């Protein structure tokens, strides 16, 4: 697992209070991990802080699963 993927998982475990084993690439924040709309906003914000980037709203809307978050951040973080 990439360093980014691990950090993403850690944030999700911490903020949503789920087990790491539940945080699979296909897992949806809202359908599988119990997040509501505010939780999702908080996750995006935590990703922004952790990776020191700004995720535009129109792109944040497309981040609904763990895998989508990891790929987005792997592509955009550290640039």
């Amino acid at each position, binding site marked *: 697992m990439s360093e980014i993927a691990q950090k993403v998982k850690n944030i999700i475990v911490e903020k*949503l*209070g789920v087990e790491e084993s539940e945080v699979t690439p296909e897992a949806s924040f809202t359908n599988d991990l119990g997040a509501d709309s*505010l939780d999702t*906003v*908080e996750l995006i*914000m935590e990703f*922004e*802080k952790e990776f020191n980037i*700004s995720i535009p709203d129109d792109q944040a809307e497309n981040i609904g699963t763990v895998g989508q978050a990891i790929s987005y951040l792997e592509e955009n973080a550290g640039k």
Partner: protein
Amino acid sequence: MTLKRVVVTGLGALTPIGNDVPTFWNNLSAGVSGAGPITKFDASKFRTRFACEVKGLDVTQFIPRQEARKMDAFTHYALIATDEAIKDSGMDLEKVDRNKVGVIWGSGIGGLKSFEDEMIDYAKGDGTPRINPFFIVRMIADSASGQISMRYGFRGPNYVTVSACASTNNGIIDAFNYIRLGRMIMCVVGGSEAAVTRAGIGGFNANRALSERNDSPETASRPYDKERDGFVMGEGAGSLILEEYEHAKARGAKIYAELIGGGMSSDAYHITAPHPEGLGAYLAMKDALDDAGIDPSEIDYINTHGTSTPVGDPQELKAIHQLFGDHSFKINISSTKSMTGHLLGAAGAVEAIASIKALENQIVPPTINLFNVDEEIDSRFNLTPLKAQTRSLTTVMSNAFGFGGHNAIVIFRKLS
């Protein structure tokens, strides 16, 4: 129309001298101080470095961590005290018509620490706002009543009253009115505060309201003592279940006391100082007696506002003397803030509980640390110094006054 009667059927307390009602009452009647050095933040540079903090509380024993982190401590306190009150009331949540159960909570400030933390975090950055989406809901004062309603499914009237240190009493009076008008069958009332924070201590230090007796925290809250030098900040919550009398009787509830009157007024004088002759306090106490339809001579005990500030304490006693005349000297008077500290918006809640437990046990809790009564105070008052007093109690009054000149008074009576 005939007004319905309103009784108290459940109590819950989370205080600096006990995390539940039995412990709170034991310590209150034994004269235990809840004061100690501040542990919640580094207070080494503050004028006041002690407070009456809630101790030994593990919030996650009551609220799942994931929920708890979306709430400020004042909301944790509200939920924990209300859990106890609801359990104590014996209400069956499946049977009670929860559309007719309200929540009217009191808080003077709301989520002060949440506000501080977020803004301090923001100030450390480069100006880009990355405000947590739970920031507002943690902070706003009404989140306490909202969270209580969600936890129990109470769908009746729901809001928070804000009148500084009179907040809870205002909420109790509102609920009293709704229930006696038949608009609710039950209501969770009470208050919570969690202002032992940098802004809370620093702010009240700045207007010279706090005691600075750092070398002896446990004797710092000393209402009516000639060497009092300010109030001691307390924190915590008190929760009470108010219920329409016939409803309580029908379900065989334990009834602690009847709420028979509520009185309110404003000083219309100064934003922090009380009226020099205690005019607002007088008017509110008179309003409460009139509302209850009783004679002043029927009051046996007054749990005073008595914060231990130089200016506040004598004015309240002047107002009592003016209203009660010679009966003033037959009443037991005590300020339980000498033990709990001043819980600001939650003060009325824990003091209503103290008053009701006094009725139940026929014991007046003391004003501790009252070593030498201020010469400005008439020596004929029985201020219940140092030790609790046993006496026959039928009717008790609990006073609360707030910055802004708000005064709110409630009267409880043993059910006849």
